[in-house]
C-alpha cells in the first residue's frame, strides 16, 4: 500500500505526520518505507536521521545536436513544447535547462543529428533509519525539473509493505507527480483561513486524480472548529486532529520526532492509521498490535 501525505499550503505538518506515522507503524512490526519526495527541500532526514547506503545521480535526457549532420529543418524546434530548442537561420540552439526530456526532438529529426545525453539534476538516495526504510530525492539548487527526480524516487523498488510518500506542497506538477499512483492521500492542513483555502485547492486536485483521501488537521484547537465545518461541507473525512502543542514545536526544533519525545502522541498516529484503513477499504484494516 502507498499513502501520500500532501497539503496545499506549505508548513502545515506533512513531514511531521509522515515521519511520525512511519515511526509508530514500524514499531508495530509493519515493514515501512518513508520516501521524501519534497525534493526541493527534503527535511524528513532531520527527524529520522537515516544512514544513507546509496546515492545515485539522477539525469534527464537532453538533446545534443551534431552540427555536421543537422540540415536546419527546424522540426525539432517545432515539436518542442517547452522552447528548449530554437532554430534560427537553419542553426539550432538548445536550452537544456528548459528540457523536460520527452525525446520528441530526436524522434522527429530526419537527419539523425540529435542524440540524447543525460544531464544531472540531483540525486536519489536510499538508506535506513532504525526499522524504517528510507529514500529521498535532492534536487540540485537552481533546477526546475523536479518531477523527473520525484518520479525516480517514487519508483525505487521496495520490499516494504507500506510506502509513506512525503509530497511537496502545492497543486502543480511536483505535487501531482508525488501523489500519482498512491492508494490513499492524507491532506494535512492547519485550521487557518490560508490553510483551508489551500486545502480546498488540494482537495480538488486529489479528486481529479480520483484517489481516496482524508484530512489531518494539525495544530487543532477545540475552540477553532473551522476545519470541521469545512470538511463537513466538502464531504471529506477528518482522519486525525493533532492538537496545537508548543512541546511538539520544541521537539521539532531539536530534530526529534514528537512520537518519541512525547509518547502520548503515539495513539494519534495509530488511530490515524486505523482510520486510513477503514476509509481506504471501507472495512476495518489491519489493526496495529
Amino acid at each position: 500500500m502507498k499513502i501520500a501525505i500532501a497539503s496545499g499550503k506549505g508548513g502545515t505538518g506533512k513531514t511531521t505526520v509522515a515521519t511520525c506515522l512511519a515511526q509508530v507503524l514500524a514499531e508495530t512490526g509493519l515493514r515501512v518505507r518513508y520516501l521524501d519526495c519534497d525534493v526541493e527541500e527534503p527535511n524528513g532526514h532531520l527527524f529520522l536521521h537515516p544512514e544513507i547506503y546509496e546515492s545515485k545521480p539522477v539525469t534527464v535526457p537532453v538533446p545534443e545536436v551534431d552540427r555536421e549532420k543537422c540540415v536546419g529543418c527546424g522540426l525539432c524546434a517545432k515539436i518542442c513544447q517547452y522552447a528548449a530548442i530554437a532554430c534560427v537561420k537553419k542553426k539550432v540552439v538548445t536550452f537544456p535547462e528548459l528540457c523536460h526530456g520527452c525525446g520528441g526532438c530526436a524522434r522527429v529529426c530526419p537527419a539523425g543529428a540529435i542524440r540524447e545525453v543525460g544531464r544531472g539534476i540531483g540525486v536519489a538516495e536510499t538508506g535506513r533509519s532504525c526499522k524504517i526504510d528510507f529514500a529521498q530525492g535532492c534536487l540540485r539548487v537552481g533546477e526546475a525539473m523536479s518531477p523527473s527526480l520525484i518520479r525516480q524516487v517514487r519508483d525505487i523498488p521496495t520490499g516494504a509493505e507500506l510506502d509513506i510518500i512525503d509530497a511537496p506542497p502545492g497543486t502543480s506538477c511536483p505535487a501531482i507527480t508525488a501523489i500519482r499512483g498512491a492508494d490513499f492521500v492524507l491532506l494535512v492542513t492547519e485550521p487557518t483561513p490560508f490553510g483551508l483555502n489551500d486545502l480546498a485547492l488540494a482537495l480538488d486536485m486529489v479528486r481529479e486524480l480520483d484517489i481516496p483521501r482524508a484530512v489531518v488537521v494539525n495544530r487543532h484547537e477545540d475552540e477553532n472548529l473551522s476545519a470541521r465545518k469545512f470538511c463537513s461541507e466538502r464531504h471529506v473525512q477528518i482522519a486525525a486532529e493533532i492538537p496545537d502543542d508548543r512541546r511538539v514545536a520544541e521537539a521539532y526544533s531539536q530534530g526529534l520526532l514528537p512520537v518519541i519525545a512525547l509518547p502520548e502522541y503515539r495513539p494519534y498516529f495509530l488511530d490515524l492509521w486505523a482510520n486510513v484503513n477503514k476509509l481506504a477499504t471501507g472495512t476495518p484494516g489491519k489493526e496495529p498490535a
Partner: protein
Amino acid sequence: MKIAVTSEGSTLEAAVDPRFGRCKYFIVVDTDTGAFEAVDNVQNLNAAQGAGIQSAETVVNQGAEAVLTGHCGPKAFRTLSTGEVKIYVGVEGTVREAVEAFKAGKLQASENADVEGHW
C-alpha cells in the same frame, strides 16, 4: 534593412515595450521605405516558459536584422545572436522615435544580455 521594435501597441506612435520576450507587439519597420507591419506577440505574452526564445525566433523569421527594446535576457540574446540579429537595449519613447534614433546612428548595439532570465 528591416528592424523589429518591441511595442505596447500596433502603431508607430505606441510606446516601446520595455520587455522583449513578453512584449505586446513587434513593429517590423523597413528603414529604407518606412513601411511597417505590426506582429502580434500575444502567444508569447502568455507563454508558460521560453517566451524570449520564441520571440527571438519570430524576429528572425520576420527577416529583421536588428531589434530595439528595453531589456533582453540571456536566452533571447543567444537565440537572436545565432540568428545574426543585432540587439539594442535601453530604448525608450515611441516606436517612431526609436526608429529615428536608430537611423541617426544614436543607438549602440549590446554585447550581452542586460538582465537575468525571468527578470
